């Protein structure tokens, strides 16, 4: 695999391989000295055109645990602010010798454009509303480890709740979950759905909450109100928020997930630390293992983590 830009592009075989590989990485991460020489001499450049804390730190940590060198590019202090084009920025960094670009951009499709201008691998760390494949991978890994589903998600009932339309996380998760065999349902008002959906939609969370194995809450952004997509955040919470009452109706084994950052009191109207099913912090922890898996899969020269030629 040369790039990791979307779940569909990677395909089911690669997704399963990466999830298996993440098990090995998780084992490395549990060691007292969580570091292997696998990517020594490789350079990974984080190019974040959009603000990010967890994803950028997660990629940086993942690269360092594999002994890769990392470069960080922050748009606020770069020549992008002097009007340099995306192409020139990428070609300039590429000329310094980079093995992989980790790219985040507010515009859908940028990782595909970037791949035309460099020989390096391109890893999509989130493009517009389109795709966030490492998030989907860490979500799959979290479900797999938390529910003991290492073979497949066959028969698993997962609801993704909230602003599907503007969510790259939702687009990637729907692809990944269904690819692994889960039954995915979207829960949202029509205003927050894309014009066409491939999986079932319900508009009343209460109708399905007792039958779920996983409830995946999306971040509800404040500006959606001013765009008349929902009348108010209060009404959103009433219809789609995870309240204590709703949480009590979830099956005991059900997982509660969120990609962060959370809007407390909106989609998460209960303290998640009081919910035994919450795996939100595990998602963050697992993010490092799956990103190590992706970096190693793209840049590693062999199957042995402990060696480097």
């Amino acid at each position, binding site marked *: 695999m040369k790039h990791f830009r979307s779940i569909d592009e990677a395909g089911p075989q690669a997704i399963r391989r990466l999830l298996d590989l993440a098990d090995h990485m998780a084992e490395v991460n549990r060691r007292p000295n969580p570091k292997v020489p696998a990517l020594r001499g490789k350079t990974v450049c984080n190019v974040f055109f959009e603000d990010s804390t967890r994803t950028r730190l997660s990629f940086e940590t993942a690269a360092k645990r594999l002994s890769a060198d990392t470069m960080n590019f922050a748009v606020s202090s770069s020549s992008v602010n002097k009007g340099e084009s995306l192409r020139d920025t990428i070609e300039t960094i590429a000329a310094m010798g980079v093995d992989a670009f980790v790219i985040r951009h507010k515009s859908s499709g940028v990782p595909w454009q970037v791949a035309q201008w460099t020989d390096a691998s391109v890893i999509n760390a989130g493009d*517009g*509303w389109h795709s966030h494949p490492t998030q989907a991978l860490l979500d799959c890994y979290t479900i797999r480890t938390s529910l003991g589903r290492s073979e497949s998600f066959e028969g698993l009932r997962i609801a993704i709740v909230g602003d599907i339309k503007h969510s790259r996380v939702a687009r990637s998760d729907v692809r990944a979950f269904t690819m692994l065999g889960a039954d995915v349902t979207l829960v949202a008002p029509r205003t927050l759905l894309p014009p066409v959906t491939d999986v079932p939609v319900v508009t009343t969370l209460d109708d399905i909450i007792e039958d779920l194995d996983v409830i995946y809450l999306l971040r509800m952004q404040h500006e959606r109100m001013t765009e008349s997509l929902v009348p108010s955040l209060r009404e959103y919470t009433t219809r789609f928020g995870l309240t204590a009452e709703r949480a009590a109706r979830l099956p005991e084994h059900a997982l509660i997930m969120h990609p962060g950052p959370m809007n407390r009191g909106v989609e998460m109207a209960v303290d998640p630390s009081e919910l035994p099913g919450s795996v939100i912090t595990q998602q963050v922890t697992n993010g490092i293992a799956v990103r190590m898996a992706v970096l190693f899969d793209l840049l590693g020269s062999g199957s042995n983590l402990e060696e480097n030629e």
Partner: protein
Amino acid sequence: MNGILITGGTIIDQTGERRADVRIVDGTIDEVGEDLSAAEGERVLDASDCIVSPGFVDLHTHLREPGREEAETIETGSRAAAKGGYTCVVAMPNTDPTQDSVSVVEFVRRQGEAAGLCDVRPSGSITVGRQGRQLSPLAELADAGVHLFTDDGDGVQDPLLMRRALEYAADLGIVLAQHCEVRRLTEGAVMHEGRCCAELGLPGWPSIAEDLMVFRDIELVRLVGAPLHILHLSTARSVELVRAAKADGLPVTAEATPHHFSLTDELLAGYNALYKVNPPLRTMADVEAVRIGLADGTIDAIATDHAPHAPETKEQPLDQAPPGMLGLETALGVSLASLDMPIAAIVAALSWKPAAIAGVADRHGRPVAVSEPANLTVFDPAAEWQVVPAQLASKSRNTPFVGVPLEGRVKHTVLRGNPVVIDGKAQK
């Protein structure tokens, strides 16, 4: 001026189809007949296996000058037009400064004359600066020879202003042309709203935004009675609306672009901004509806919406890249390859029908007959070819037709008796 003899071709014009040679003297057709022999000093243009037709007329060309000369100039755009078989183009007003004053339209016309490759007819904007607030001096511009008025790129959003514009235009003998898009429904839009945009995570441009504006303006025409030309129809529903308006006898005309009857939104899958255009590429059902609209005469004209953009602008992220595609040099090839229509009907949509809408029917789109002005196109309808961006006469390279098999290619173009293109090559 030395004469020209076009030999061996088949004439297609509004009077029918016939085998005949054409002799041109002093910019005028001097003789039409079979097996004419060349007089001394006469230049012979071979038209074997070719159609000889009135020159093409494009209702919708962006020449970019003044203001964006890095993308196109009136000279390079005129050359592209001539190579595409056009003897006349209507220059869209979204220049900088806008074509909303006599001085700017005179500048455009003079630059066209200086290039001498094509008759450049400036359009005027309906509103000052295309801002949609205040009417341009429509009568002054009409006196200066402007016939078509449009705020192209930005339709006139305000219904009151559009009503007033139609009322004011009604007495001037001019035609308003509308880019039909309810802007409030397309804010931030990058591509057609449908399955592809849902998958690609791009903001959608819904068909309803075009349909509503087409409907509104047809109803305003019904009220006011002034003529309206609808630019680049792209949706199945808006084709239906125009068909119904024509059945009601309203003075509405419409055009469609080659890309809207040949390409679909699925091409955006690779996030290549070459396929970003406004209105956007739509679905196969819309493409079919536009083809049927052209075939049954609902849509009068094929217009290019030739929109040059410098390469660096098309390399921006898709939501920031400007919309638009080149079209002048490929319109005939795409039309013959995509449309299941008699050649004569396609030529009508490229020549005399748009000539009438543009108000140039006294010079262009005339029958190929004695005493008529010699604005002619000679093309090989069977030539199969593919576009090579580096060989385009346009200053820009943003053609979406790379790799698309084209059918039919312009061989010679004659402007006012001058062979401006011979054997596919511009003569200046």
